[in-house]
């Protein structure tokens, strides 16, 4: 998706910032640091950078270098976004964001969107965070993601091409792999979708 944004013909400048939540980094991935990581990627214009430099110099004068609090960081991000023509913020795997940080992160994004109509936010996550997300933004678009047969084919063909012993694979076995695995995965997806999940019960 980010590559598509980059490659599409565009009449005005766009700035893209992304973040990948990660179970293994939950200790470090606080709301403040996630918002800061997004802001870092938007220091792409002189006025934006100067604005942040000014805040940095001020913080450094105070008590030997004061750290940033979430409201300060969100405020700086809002000001940075306002200085850019259009901003895309992409955050992956929100279900891997610790619950204590998730709501703060969603609230921060909502705060930014309230002041910037031109900003677009792309989020991914498992169904267990859907309630938090739809509850935070009320309006928005949701796309259910399932494994597509076409994508599974591409993946399998790529793996078969990398087979270190291709001569050991018969034409029949190769054809079976490409036929049966996508079928089975499709069946698994179909049967999984008929089982009520806690998330579905909430609705």
């Amino acid at each position, binding site marked *: 998706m980010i590559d598509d944004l980059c490659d599409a013909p565009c009449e005005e*400048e766009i700035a*893209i910032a992304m973040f*990948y939540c990660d179970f293994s980094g939950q200790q470090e991935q606080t709301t403040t640091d996630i918002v*800061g990581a997004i802001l870092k*990627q938007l220091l792409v214009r002189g006025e934006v*950078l100067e604005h942040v430099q000014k805040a940095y110099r001020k913080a450094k004068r105070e008590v030997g270098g004061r750290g940033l609090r979430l409201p300060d960081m969100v405020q700086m991000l809002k000001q940075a976004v306002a200085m850019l023509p259009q901003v895309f913020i992409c955050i992956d795997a929100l279900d891997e964001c610790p619950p204590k940080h998730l709501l703060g992160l969603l609230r921060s994004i909502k705060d930014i969107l309230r002041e910037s109509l031109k900003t677009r936010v792309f*989020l*991914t996550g498992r169904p267990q965070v*859907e309630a938090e997300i739809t509850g935070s933004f009320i309006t928005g*678009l949701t796309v259910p993601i399932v494994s597509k047969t076409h994508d599974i084919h591409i993946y399998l063909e790529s793996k078969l091409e990398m087979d270190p012993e291709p001569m050991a694979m018969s034409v029949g076995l190769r054809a079976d792999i490409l036929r049966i695995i996508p079928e089975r995965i499709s069946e698994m997806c179909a049967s999984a979708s008929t089982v009520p999940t806690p998330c579905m019960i909430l609705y």
Partner: protein
Amino acid sequence: MGSTSYQRSIWIGDGNFDCGNVTNSNNIVNNLRVTNRNNTVNVNNKIIADANPEIMQWLSPLNPRRRHQDVRTDRLDGVGNWLLETNEFREWRSREGGAEKAVLFCCGDPGVGKTYLT
């Protein structure tokens, strides 16, 4: 400082991205690709030179760009392109939906490929 011209399809950054013909790989400005009607990107060198690592660290110790590059490297061409053809993505991307369609949430079970859609 004058400006440096880049041809389109160039990531502006430290050269870790393999996306085009970087004509000036001085660094710090991260993860931005800018395009305009003429497919030319202008970058003010002062911005690049002044981006201070101390400020970057002060803002956040996290570096999502590394993870993004890993995902890009592993992603197979063509996988997930279906998303780009959906009405939801087009509405979100085009801004026609206004503020009501500013957020696009891709929801799916583990292992269905959500990260590679990003």
